[in-house]
């Protein structure tokens, strides 16, 4: 997106007066649409549309062996793919840097066992565990990718059903797992504390949340705050500019406050989702 100086000034002045170009206030979010169970052969999935940011997340599960240094933990891996559908710049390997930044932030945000307890994915100490592949496909970029991805991931994990293991037979070095075929007999993940990310974007002297593409363009830098429960699990700065320590504290405050609000709203929405709702791109 290319903006001329006049357009930038317009955005900047709007922000200064707490009246953003799409009419929002500084700490307002754009409308979101959330659907779960959109990918039929995944163990869990979700699609989030935040204005014109579109993210699709699918969770696949495989059996694996725990890392030797953490034999009691299962594995969770995040993979982000920036589809060229979002912008021609992502063609080939163009979106790789952004994708790695997002997946690394997710990995660190989920790394603490207080945010996501991977011990529950372990089936047999040091021998067998579940590995969750959380695959994120970015289909359209209308700004604020980190937030959208984190919400979609949380929803997809909420939607995930882990097969129930009926029996574990150990015979020397051979391990046989008896996995239940019954779809109703499955476990769900505890995502109570799964982190929600809020990007606080600094424009001029003010901080805003949920920037759209134009606002992102005008910003000198932003802080991604990942909040898990009532604690902060990751902070990651993006963009180029630097911040005064006071501004940093202020934006952390704002991000924290908004994240708590967002998390509450998300929980409410998730509890309302019924399994038989029509979902998909045809709607």
């Amino acid at each position, binding site marked *: 997106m290319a903006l001329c100086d006049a357009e930038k000034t317009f955005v900047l002045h709007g922000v200064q007066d707490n009246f953003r170009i799409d009419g929002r206030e500084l700490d307002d979010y754009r409308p979101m649409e959330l659907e779960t169970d959109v990918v039929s052969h995944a163990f869990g999935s979700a699609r989030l549309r935040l204005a014109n940011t*579109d993210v699709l997340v699918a969770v696949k599960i495989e059996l694996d062996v725990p890392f030797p240094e953490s034999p009691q933990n299962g594995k969770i891996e995040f993979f982000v*793919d920036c589809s060229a*559908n979002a912008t021609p710049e992502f*063609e080939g390997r163009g979106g790789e840097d952004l994708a790695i930044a997002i997946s690394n932030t997710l990995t660190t945000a989920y790394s603490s066992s207080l945010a996501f307890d991977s011990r529950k994915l372990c089936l047999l100490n040091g021998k067998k565990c579940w590995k969750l*592949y959380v695959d994120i496909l970015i289909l*359209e970029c209308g700004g604020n990718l980190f937030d959208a991805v984190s919400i979609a991931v949380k929803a997809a994990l909420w939607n995930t059903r882990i097969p129930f293991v009926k029996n574990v037979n150990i015979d020397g070095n051979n391990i046989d797992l008896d996995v239940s075929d019954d779809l109703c007999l499955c476990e769900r993940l505890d995502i109570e504390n799964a982190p929600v990310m809020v990007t606080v974007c600094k424009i001029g002297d003010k901080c805003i949340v949920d920037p759209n593409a134009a606002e992102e363009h005008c910003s000198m830098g932003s802080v991604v705050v990942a909040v898990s429960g009532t604690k902060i699990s990751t902070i990651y700065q993006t963009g180029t500019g630097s911040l005064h320590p006071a501004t940093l504290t202020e934006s952390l405050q704002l991000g924290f406050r908004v994240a708590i609000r967002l998390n509450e709203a998300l929980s409410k929405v998730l509890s309302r989702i019924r399994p038989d709702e029509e979902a998909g791109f*045809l709607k």
Partner: protein
Amino acid sequence: MSKNKELISKIGLRLDGRRANELRRIRCKLGVFTEPDGSAYIEQGLTKVLAAVYGPHEVRGGRSKAQHNSAIINCQFSMAVFSTTERKKRPRGDRKSTELSMHLQQALEAAIKSELYPFCQIDVYVEVLHADGGIYPACVNAATLALIDAGIPLKEYVCACTASLANNDIPMLDISHQEEVLGGPTLTVAALPMSGKIVLMEMSQRFHLDHLDKVLEKALQGCKDIKEILDNAVRLHVTDIGSSTGWANTKH
């Protein structure tokens, strides 16, 4: 060859209950995204594909690549890592995706009136969300819809379809993943259905030359049928957004 016999049962039904010349259900939508100049979503049975079109715009990556008499059609085929039952390692960059990108480009070049846009480039990106047989035809069909949505002049629709030979004798249409796996040759045809021209034809296995005619005929018939369905969708879409008063933007 013994496996092939079971593809159509005695009463003429296929594994998923279709008749030999029956297509899977096609559902599609134009203009699913706002950012690209044109976009479309298509479902053919369980196969789901998203397509986006950007352009025509200035040639990226140096003017040296530009052509003075036509636009460059740049295609990228990509498959979501979760689109297959077994998780894929990479969404693109492997040999199969590069080949499919090229085939897609060849099919679209035949339909786009690219001579109208010299020194320009048109990007077509397709993303497979769910692969269940007939990926290539779904991509071609989705790309066609996205091009129409982007308002890029086409000579006519370009449609693609697969056909196969069941029980060593009966040609059948629109092969699902299950049928692909069970064996039998798959003939993929991309065609301009109105003029009946074949743009691209590819076969996965050998079968006797005597059968080619009827299988090809079936595939072409499939392309024509698909064209009708796409045409309907386009007409609906155009009437939907056609009104200048904007009444169409409200949800029904």
